């Protein structure tokens, strides 16, 4: 009776999975650029942000068309309103991947600093991101809830990185600019963790109708 409608919903789901894969690859590229001070990689990720934005617009159009033509209700309505919210968070994650890549370029001529906590933040946030997209794709409520819990770990790591950077500047002022840049990178990772949490929360809503707070 409604095969065309179901087909369009399936296409929307597919487009969201594609956008999830795009931001996963942007984040992983940004981490590589930052770790290895890989300027070419950083430039690629910055340019790639346009593709992510284009995917956001594509999905927006799909949602608008579905709202207009099908006037969805119930689960269908939740899926489509969730798609609207997901792409906003995904687009912001793409922006932050570009922001981190710009920092990688700025850090090129500054003294090398190592922070295991920052490295751990990168690992944790990209794992949150991957899990949140997987939770959506696999409609796995438990996985989504695990992402929501994981956000506290990232928030704690941010506090640790901040203390480390303050300490580094105190010990040697030559590190101040690099430390400030790395602190900004940490803030971007922390924000990515927040957006991944949002994705997980909207995923729970789409499939249960209940909001996670």
């Amino acid at each position: 009776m409604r095969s065309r409608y179901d087909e369009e919903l399936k296409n929307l789901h597919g487009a969201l999975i594609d956008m999830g894969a795009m931001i996963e690859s942007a984040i992983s590229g940004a981490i590589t650029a930052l770790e290895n001070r890989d300027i070419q990689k950083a430039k690629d990720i910055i340019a790639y942000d346009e593709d992510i934005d284009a995917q956001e617009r594509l999905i927006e159009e799909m949602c608008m068309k579905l709202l207009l033509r099908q006037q969805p209700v119930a689960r269908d309505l939740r899926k489509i309103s969730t798609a609207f919210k997901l792409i906003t968070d995904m687009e912001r994650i793409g922006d932050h991947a570009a922001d981190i890549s710009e920092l990688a370029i700025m850090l090129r001529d500054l003294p090398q600093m190592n922070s295991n906590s920052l490295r751990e933040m990168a690992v944790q946030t990209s794992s949150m991101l991957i899990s949140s997209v997987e939770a959506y794709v696999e409609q796995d409520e438990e996985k989504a809830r695990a992402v929501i819990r994981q956000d506290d770990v990232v928030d704690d790591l941010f506090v640790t990185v901040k203390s480390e950077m303050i300490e580094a500047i105190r010990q040697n002022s030559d590190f101040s600019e690099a430390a400030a840049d790395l602190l900004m990178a940490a803030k971007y990772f922390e924000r990515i963790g927040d957006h991944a949490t949002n994705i997980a929360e909207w995923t729970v809503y789409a499939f249960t109708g209940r909001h996670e707070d």
Partner: protein
Amino acid sequence: MNSPNAFEVRGMNLHYGSFHALKNIHLDIPRNQITALIGPSGCGKSTFLRSLNRMNDLVEGCRIDGDIRMDGEDIYGKIDVNHLRKRVGMVFQKPNPFPMSIYDNVAYGPRTHGVKSKAQLDALVEKSLKDAAIWDEVKDRLKKSALGLSGGQQQRLCIARALAAQPETILMDEPTSALDPISTSHIEELALTLKDQYTIIIVTHNMQQAARISDRTVFFLLGEVIESGETEQIFSSPADKRTEDYITGRFG
């Protein structure tokens, strides 16, 4: 009048001969709200609507048991049915103006109920037509035949006619299914305005209409109430899979 509900229905069953059309209905209809009754054709929603002003009494072989109370009073007990129908007005799917003037259509009910003074009738006709948002369109041709009005105007005239009896509740049985989108939106706007003064119960096959105007929605299926609740909840997160399947167009 202490209860917030205009109607309280408990353990109601309705049979047409041997056919069990409504099964063990328990339902509260809150006062001054719009309640939408939805469900596939033949599910019993119109039958339920008609039992609220005892229109089913006219159907041969119709038998009702259980309890339907309006303001605490058993409407199937010892009551004056004419008085009940004055308190519970009705608007039908197809506009059905009487073949008489616009004025006489609206004055018909009050006259039947004994209002004779011209001044009183004039005032009541004007107020009813204004409340039904059609006064401006007809005030210069009150003596003309109601049959010359457009479908949408005729339906608003029928609403004015119902209002003239000064009811407490208005039952609407698919009131816009024969109307174009503009007339439909007039009737919907009107329903939203009227709910401050009246309790409105509307049967509709238009899901978007139920979602747009009603405060509460009741889903009927095969003579049973499957789910009832706040309209927003029913249309965003229905609790029962059958409700979900119906409103998303997977059956019905």
